[in-house]
């Protein structure tokens, strides 16, 4: 009789807190259940409280890996983008979240790891390492990576400069990049406010693009970042077609 092989979780001997911090995470039915339940509640709240509306939904319909790039002025942004995805893809969607902000205090860590499934992104030191992590994650087909290339929440509601890291991530890679514009979250829940206000929120999903043929040199990645910023900013002009 051949011996059975046990494919143990690689974090068996870590404490629960260390387990929340580590990435990639081990599959966990209980966490998946909680996340799906949370997503349903968040979706319902967005619909009712913010009259949430999605334009260009069809641009997200693919089984290949995606990088979603969007403007950032509120915590609501991540929730809106997640609400645009089908529930079954939720556990393979990773919003990149600042590890210095979301992966320190326990309540934020719990929300980031369990509810949002965030990818810890070191935005001050070791950016290169975080980008490599993003690329590894994207190598699995069907992964959705959500990135706010401004690197922080805007305090004016305008779309700021995109960091060149987004260019380095997608240049020369065969991965679809979807620019999105989120409208209204700045008024609904700006940085520094405790609770969201009931303002209308719209998500406009642009057409996917691909930077497979672009080399990853310094000038080019800055150009890609600038192009993506313009693509996101232009979506602001799209009006509700219905």
């Amino acid at each position, binding site marked *: 009789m051949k011996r*059975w092989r*046990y*494919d*143990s*979780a690689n974090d*068996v*001997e*870590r*404490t*629960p807190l*260390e387990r929340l911090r580590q990435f990639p995470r*081990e*599959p*966990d*039915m*209980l966490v*998946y259940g909680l996340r799906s339940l949370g997503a349903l509640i968040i979706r319902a709240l967005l619909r009712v409280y913010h009259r949430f509306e999605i334009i260009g939904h069809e641009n997200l319909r693919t089984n290949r890996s995606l990088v979603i790039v969007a403007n950032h002025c509120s915590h609501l942004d991540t929730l809106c983008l997640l609400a645009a995805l089908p529930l079954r893809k939720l556990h393979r969607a990773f919003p990149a979240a600042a590890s210095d902000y979301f992966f320190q205090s326990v309540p934020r860590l719990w929300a980031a790891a369990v509810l949002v499934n965030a990818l810890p992104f070191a935005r001050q030191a070791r950016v290169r390492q975080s980008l490599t992590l993003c690329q590894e994650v994207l190598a699995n087909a069907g992964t959705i990576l959500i990135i706010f290339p401004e690197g922080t929440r805007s305090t004016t509601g305008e779309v700021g400069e995109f960091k060149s890291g987004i260019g380095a991530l997608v240049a020369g890679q065969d991965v679809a990049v979807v620019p999105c514009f989120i409208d209204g979250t700045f008024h609904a829940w700006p940085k520094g406010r405790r609770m969201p206000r009931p303002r209308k929120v719209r998500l406009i999903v642009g057409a996917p693009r691909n930077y497979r043929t672009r080399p990853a040199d310094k000038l080019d990645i800055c150009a890609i970042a600038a192009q993506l910023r313009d693509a996101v900013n232009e979506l602001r002009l799209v009006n509700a077609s219905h």
Partner: protein
Amino acid sequence: MSPQIALHDPVFRGYFLIVLISLAAGGAVLAFLRFISKKESASMFKTYWSWIFMAGIGLIVVFLGRIPTIVGVTFLAIYAFKEFARASGLHRDWWMTGVVYAGIITVGIASLVAHPRAGEPGTAWYGFFVAVPVFAIALILLIPILRNRARGELQRMSLAIVGFIYIGWMFGHLGFLANARNAYGFVCFIIFATGVSDVAAFTFGKIFGRHPLRSEISPNKTWEGALGAFAVAMILPWLLRFSFPFFGTRELILTGLIVGIGGQLGDLSISVIKREIGTKDMAATIPGHGGILDRIDSLIYVAPLFMHMAGYYYPLR
């Protein structure tokens, strides 16, 4: 069981005092040891703080009443199974783990609700409680058929069945005991006596341990520790006779045997699983103890054996 009854129940009040005294005595011994020998005892203190934490939670949950006790046991079982699944690699299989979680919740429900046609006395549904494994195993065997896959399925089915029966259902008996007429006596005695005999095994093993008990399974356990724990477990039913005043000598001896031998066997059988998988602890949930499963392993053996023994001689409800 309810907070009002617990406040006036001599058995619950008795256990409240006994637990406080035991923890104080344990703390005093540890402090004395540190004072005398100046040895590195940080790990022992970590274990001790965890004991205080667990005793506090246990007392509060039992104090709150029947429903919190059963819900608490169900949560513990779910978490313990999660540790087992993560250690054995079953956690990658959504359907198997999902069915086992559903089975554990069903065990909890069968302990909570009464028979819908009032076919049995009391608050729980004993017939269904005992029959849950039938349905759970039937569902687990159904999964490979639905998936149309045979490769590796025997291992997954076996792990799921062991996980459900052992961790979900057998441990679930502790929750079912909360329905007994003598719930405080049974539940408090079982938890307290198992805990004390675990500590006794550790202490006797540390002091007198020479001969390995099962060298291929758990190298740290010794015959001396096991015999010490057995002796303590045989005395406890007499010392704590107020928890079941209606027990005769025969039942007291059986209780001692179940706690003394069953507790050790529970410990060893989890060690078999850990040894085969190749991990030291099932998880690192409780500082100084390992995982939840490492802590409740003796109770898994003791609770069902005790419940059926007590139920044989006296109607539980």
